[in-house]
């Protein structure tokens, strides 16, 4: 029972942080564009509105897929140590996290495709292609860290960086961090790697038929994924944190970098994006890996 409450609490916390980041991100982009921008809590308002709205579903697979998508990311989130805390104490294996994250994508893709709109399916096709693009460099960077630390546990990797900023993997392996940052841009689906959403081209891709609470669930999924992805980065490169507040702050630093890049870039075509990811960040990651191995 306590475990269940903890899980629920962690979920709400992750959603809260994710939505907060989304709002702040929008504000920052607005400021970069010399606009006032929406208030920082805008994402909450949006989600609130969406859940209150009457929504439209085409069939039960859409409902199932949206639930699966949020559930997948929530359960992934439970494996990411937040400043050393976890909802249920278990080994936070990196490979497990990577694979678990896929279930969220699968659910989302299934819901999108079940709507029967070709734009959605095109978006899914692009998203999956992009996934193949970013997984390779990101995994290569992770591989270096795993081999260096002799463990695939995210928690142990975070712990091994304890004791000052100079011990952070970000400082020790700057090339790896750079590659991971570029890959992270694609993982989060921010510009220049947002070909799968591309509102002007394929009418926001997978989300084209989502409205009301389905879009709301998609927002929540996105919020949790921001939390998970920045959380992984913090644990991998910034030495985790001693308390939750520092952890969230570090997460925000990572998210800030992403947002700053997002604000100023146009969009890659999908195959350009994959080519870019397989050349630039991948070669940086390979150099980093070679340095670690030799």
């Amino acid at each position, binding site marked *: 029972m306590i475990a269940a409450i903890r899980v629920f609490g962690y979920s709400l916390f992750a959603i809260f942080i994710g939505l907060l980041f989304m709002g702040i991100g929008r504000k920052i982009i607005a400021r970069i564009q010399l606009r006032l921008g929406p208030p920082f809590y805008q994402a909450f308002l949006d989600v609130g509105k969406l859940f209150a709205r009457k*929504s439209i*579903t085409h069939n039960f697979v859409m409902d199932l897929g949206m639930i699966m998508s*949020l*559930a997948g990311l929530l359960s992934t989130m439970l494996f990411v140590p937040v400043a050393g805390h976890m909802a249920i104490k278990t080994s936070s294996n990196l490979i497990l996290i990577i694979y678990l994250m896929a279930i969220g994508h699968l659910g989302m893709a299934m819901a999108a495709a079940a709507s*029967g709109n070709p734009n959605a399916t095109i978006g899914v*096709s692009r998203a999956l292609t992009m996934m193949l693009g970013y997984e390779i460099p990101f995994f290569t960077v992770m591989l270096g860290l795993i081999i260096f630390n002799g463990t*695939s546990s995210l928690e142990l990797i975070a712990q091994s960086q304890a004791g000052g900023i100079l011990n952070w993997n970000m400082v020790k392996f700057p090339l790896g961090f750079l590659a991971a940052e570029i890959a992270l841009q694609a993982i989060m689906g921010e510009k220049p790697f947002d070909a799968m959403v591309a509102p002007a081209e394929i009418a926001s891709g997978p989300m084209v038929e989502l409205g009301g609470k389905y879009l709301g669930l998609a927002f929540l999924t996105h919020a949790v994924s921001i939390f998970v992805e920045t959380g992984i980065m913090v644990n991998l490169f910034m030495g985790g944190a001693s308390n939750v507040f520092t952890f969230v702050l570090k997460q925000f630093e990572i998210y800030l970098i992403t947002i700053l890049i997002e604000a100023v870039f146009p969009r890659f075509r999908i195959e350009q994006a994959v080519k870019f990811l397989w050349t630039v960040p991948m070669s940086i990651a390979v150099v980093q890996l070679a340095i670690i191995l030799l």
Partner: protein
Amino acid sequence: MVEILLVPLITAFISDIFIKNKRLVWFLFLISNGYILYKLYSLYGKWDLTYILNTDYQIFGAKLSLGLSNNPLGWYFAFFSAVVTLVIAIFSIGFNTNSKGNVAPIWMLIIFANLGIFYAADWITFFMMWELMGWTSFFAITNGNTKALDGAKYYLALSLLGGSSMLIAILLLGAYTKTFIIITSAYRLIQLFNLAEGVFTTILLLFIMAFFIKSAIFPFYMWPSKVYAVGPEDYIAFMSSVMIKYGIYPMAIFIVPVIGNLQLPKIFNAGNWMQYFIGYLGALSAVVGTLLAMFQTDMKKLFAYSSVANMGYILLGFASMSIVGFEGSLFHVVNHIVLKAAIFLSLAAVVYRTGESEMHKLGGLVYKMPITFLTFLFGIIAAAGIPPLNGFGSKWMIIQALMEKKMVVLVISMVFASTGAFMYLFRALVSIFLGQLPERYKDVKEVPYTMSIPMIIMMGLMLLIGVVPGVVMKPLTIALDALGYKVDIATWTTLSSSFKNATIDLKIVFYMFAMGIVVAALMYLFGNKSETIPQHDNYTAGENPIEWGVDADKFNYSYSFYQPFKEMFDPLFERISIDRFFSSIGKNFEYISPTIQGLYKRGEGAVLLFSIGVLLFILGGWIL
């Protein structure tokens, strides 16, 4: 112990006689499979059972004796194959009620060969069963279907080639080690390495070629796509899940111990060249299989390439030459047996109802065949290696083992392949089951109970193995223990690798996923109520496609699903094609053939040729 071989053989003969009575034949098939499973279950633990048949046949100066033995690894393969075969057998009863041909007798022969391979104690028995499987599966694939001939011919040629290469290897092994017993010959082969390295390498490579052909590893990866596309679907389910593992079993029992025990210099502190040889071929099959699977339009071809990729994973596990990788590979064997059978059963159900296997001509079947969809969904989740189902554990172990051995290229290609797997698996899901339902499939129904129950069983199996991997890992650890490998006895739900703090508890993963579902469902219920609208009511920029005479199923985006991505690879695949290479060999033979026939048709040339022959013969006799 002999009875598990005799029963399928006798069943094959009996069902051959009653071939016209379909119901009886398939019922016999089911009974026989059930008996085999029961018998295998009772054989568990009796590892010293052997059966030897002495013959007067003399080879290399000694009388040949053929033997069977209940070896733990063979049991492991045989048992799980038998479980899945039984489920497929139940499915077949429903599936074959209207079909024209009847593969049951020949299938029974294949099961006989199957058990023979897993229970063979010596290479000659092994080879006999191996070759038996080759030609029987040719007949099972073609099954009187003229269109199936091309693919089956390709398979047969490769299969016979593999058989030949294995025959040479076995006989060389017998000549140099003076034994045909599999286990003994492995030990003696290792000793041979120091005496005659050339012979050793030849034997090993020939064996590997035979096994790779059967398991569709890299240079020989073409046959599944050709064969699966044409064979009877229920048999293909068996073939893609069980039969493709035949190459893996001898790899596990012979090649891996031999390579593992060699004292070879290591490259980059990671592994010796033989490990890399196996590993790179595995990685190539994983990557190439994945890429090709993405670009298929026929769903059976797609999953054929997926099988190729999965065989690649298994090989990668072997290449790590660590106990975790080895265990992971063998675990993946069972996982793949289960999940591929599930996927192909659901595909068989789709073909049964629609008669179509081109993905872009299907779509929206989920509304008509929910159980089939669910089986397929479970299958692809498992195949993508996503946690609560069974494909994850083994992939995880293989990746852990490779990372531990610092085989970075191999592990990156493994991740590439399993991420790419996500692409083609999802593509199949979308194209077959989701999207708009074509008008012509409005009356499609869910398959009858005889077919849906096996699918439900497969779903249960996937979930069971996924959450409680112990049901497979326990027998596996005991089998490995009996073979002399030191393994930790795993608990029912945990998997571990030798990394620091790298034990995952799949039970907890399952709980967490379940809780995730609960939280997400709460969120879902929290929202305002939703309304279901017709499937074709889509945002189309205000256009009404029906008004323009466009059917709803034209909305399905499923043809050239990954076109931009494919264009990246087009130059590569246009330039290099293993398929073209192998086909061209066959084509060249067929090209020469009429010339030679012409030689035998004409008269004047004959006399000329004859005299030249005599002349050369005489000259040769003097000069040589």
